[in-house]
């Protein structure tokens, strides 16, 4: 028995350490970015910063703030998150409700299923979608970022499955009392589904905040880029600066003139809202994910 518990203890120590290391890989890169953003640029490009600022300065943040570009992109992102999330949530809720009905209550359900099912796995692709958005005159406007993805079938399925778990008796009682569909949805279904709604809310907000590719695609002038798109252009231009036929010295020269601290500050500021929102909503969404995926 004692031997057993001893080997168990050894296992526990190794296990805890291993999990700790994995967890650290998920947090240290961002600590590093924060440290770089608060360091002196010379030390940063020389690679002398690890997890603590070297030559502490808030210059990078002052510089970012003094640049109108960063803040106007943050403003566009905020608008996008607000408008986009409102539309997404509204559409998901009013669609998930009828779809959660049984076939005998809502005969056309099976046709709607086919209709949505096809779009889950087949689409027009990049160019045709671009042309539709162009024809609708949405290019360069915030609606190009908000409308194409306004209705997500996957999210609808998640909520629909949750709605199906709502006891039928509640709904019948409401109908007997003369409640219509809207009342039933808002007074019975939604209050019960709060964990699911919180999950969807979190994923939708973060999805909008993070989306960058549609910004690049549909905004002609970079001044209309949301934050994520703006950041992506910095990253992509970095990738393209270096090429294979450069000598090590050239690459070293190039890295010396880079403004590492400023880009770190921008990266960190872009992460910040997520790092704040995530812990607040995570209690709910752990449940929501589980409902959504293990139902099979």
């Amino acid at each position, binding site marked *: 028995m004692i031997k057993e518990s001893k080997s*168990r203890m050894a*296992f*526990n120590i190794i296990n805890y350490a*291993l*999990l*700790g290391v*994995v967890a650290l890989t*998920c*947090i240290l890169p*961002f600590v*590093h970015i924060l440290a770089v953003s608060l360091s002196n640029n010379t030390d940063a490009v*020389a*690679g*002398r910063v690890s997890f603590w600022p070297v030559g502490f300065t808030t210059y990078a943040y002052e510089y970012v703030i003094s640049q109108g570009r960063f803040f106007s992109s943050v403003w566009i992102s905020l608008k996008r998150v607000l408008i986009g999330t409102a539309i997404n949530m509204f559409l998901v809720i*009013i*669609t998930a409700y*009828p*779809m959660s009905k049984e076939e005998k*209550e*809502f005969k056309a359900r099976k046709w709607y299923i086919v*209709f949505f*099912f096809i779009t889950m*796995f087949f*689409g*027009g*692709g*990049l*160019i*045709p*979608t671009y042309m*539709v958005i162009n024809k609708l005159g949405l290019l360069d406007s915030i609606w190009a970022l908000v409308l*194409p993805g*306004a*209705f997500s*079938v996957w999210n609808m*399925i998640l909520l629909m499955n949750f709605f199906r778990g709502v006891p039928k008796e509640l709904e019948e009682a409401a*109908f007997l009392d003369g409640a219509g*569909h809207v009342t039933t949805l808002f007074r019975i279904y939604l209050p019960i589904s709060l964990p699911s709604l919180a999950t969807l809310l979190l994923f939708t907000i973060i999805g909008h905040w*993070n*989306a*960058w*590719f549609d910004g690049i695609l549909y905004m002609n002038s970079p001044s209309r880029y949301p934050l994520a*798109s703006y*950041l*992506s252009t910095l990253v*992509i231009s970095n*990738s393209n600066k*270096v*090429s294979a036929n450069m000598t*090590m010295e050239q690459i070293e020269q190039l890295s010396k003139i880079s403004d590492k601290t400023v880009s*770190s500050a*921008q*990266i960190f500021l872009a*992460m910040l809202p997520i790092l704040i929102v*995530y812990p607040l909503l*995570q209690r709910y969404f752990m449940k929501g*994910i589980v409902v959504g*995926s*293990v139902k*099979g």
Partner: protein
Amino acid sequence: MSKKIKTIKKSNRQNTRFLHVMMLPAVIFTCIFCYLPMFGLVMAFQDYKGFLGFTGSKFVGLENFIYIFKMPGFLSALRNTVSIAFFKIILSILVPLVLALLLNEVVKHARYKKLVQTVIFIPYFLSWAILGGVIQQILGYNGSINELLKDLGMTPILFLLNNQWFRPIIITTDVWKGMGYNMVVFLAAITNVDIALYEVAKIDGANRWQQLLNITIPGIRSIVILLTILGLGNILNAGFEQILMLYNPVVYSTGDIIDTFVYRLGIEKMEYSYAAAAGLFKSAVSFVFVMITIKLANKFSDYRVF
């Protein structure tokens, strides 16, 4: 009484009409942004010219498809796509599974378990626009990893400019980003395993290892297989946003995938017809794969999408 039932029935019928009204907005959006673009795929069979439009452009049959298959880079992009996606699919099941099993062994310190779980989930929520920047900084010439190599007296490696390193980095960082999600799913499946089984096993003198092998793993086998099957539907999705963010012409031979190939062809070179043809080829193959995986999943565990 019967009158009351009748009125309920009647109102229910009216209600059905209202259910359709509720569906309407989503149907309109889906028509405009999903179905309308599908008609645009006609251009994959045309020599599409913007000024001629769909009606005026000449039909060329399968010529575009033949052309792209002969294009240098397309077949290698196809190969890269499959091999990157394959490793991503397998590892993004295996790594979270191992993590979930390990985390499940943390019994005494619930706080630690919760903390680890929360932290591992963080990268999942960050966009590739952000993570791309982070990865560039860490793997760059003066990044942390290379500083470490220099300290150890080794020559720095240009990870993102190196055809040997690029693919492993893409796969690792993607698995790293997504591992929190499936880990939570597996943890939930583990907690759903009947506790009585463990009690009985304990009485029979089974140790933790035996419990793991004989109870936990069989208990979550079905969800693991299900997720693997469904993952295989993504065999042509190697991660467009991630690769677009991190690749460069030097690593096209190992890192270019169909999606990035289509992107360059369509957006940068404005070869709409060729891009649409390449995209359609990918969609069609993906569609077949997804249908097969859904059929398999259905057979295996009466999984259904709706």
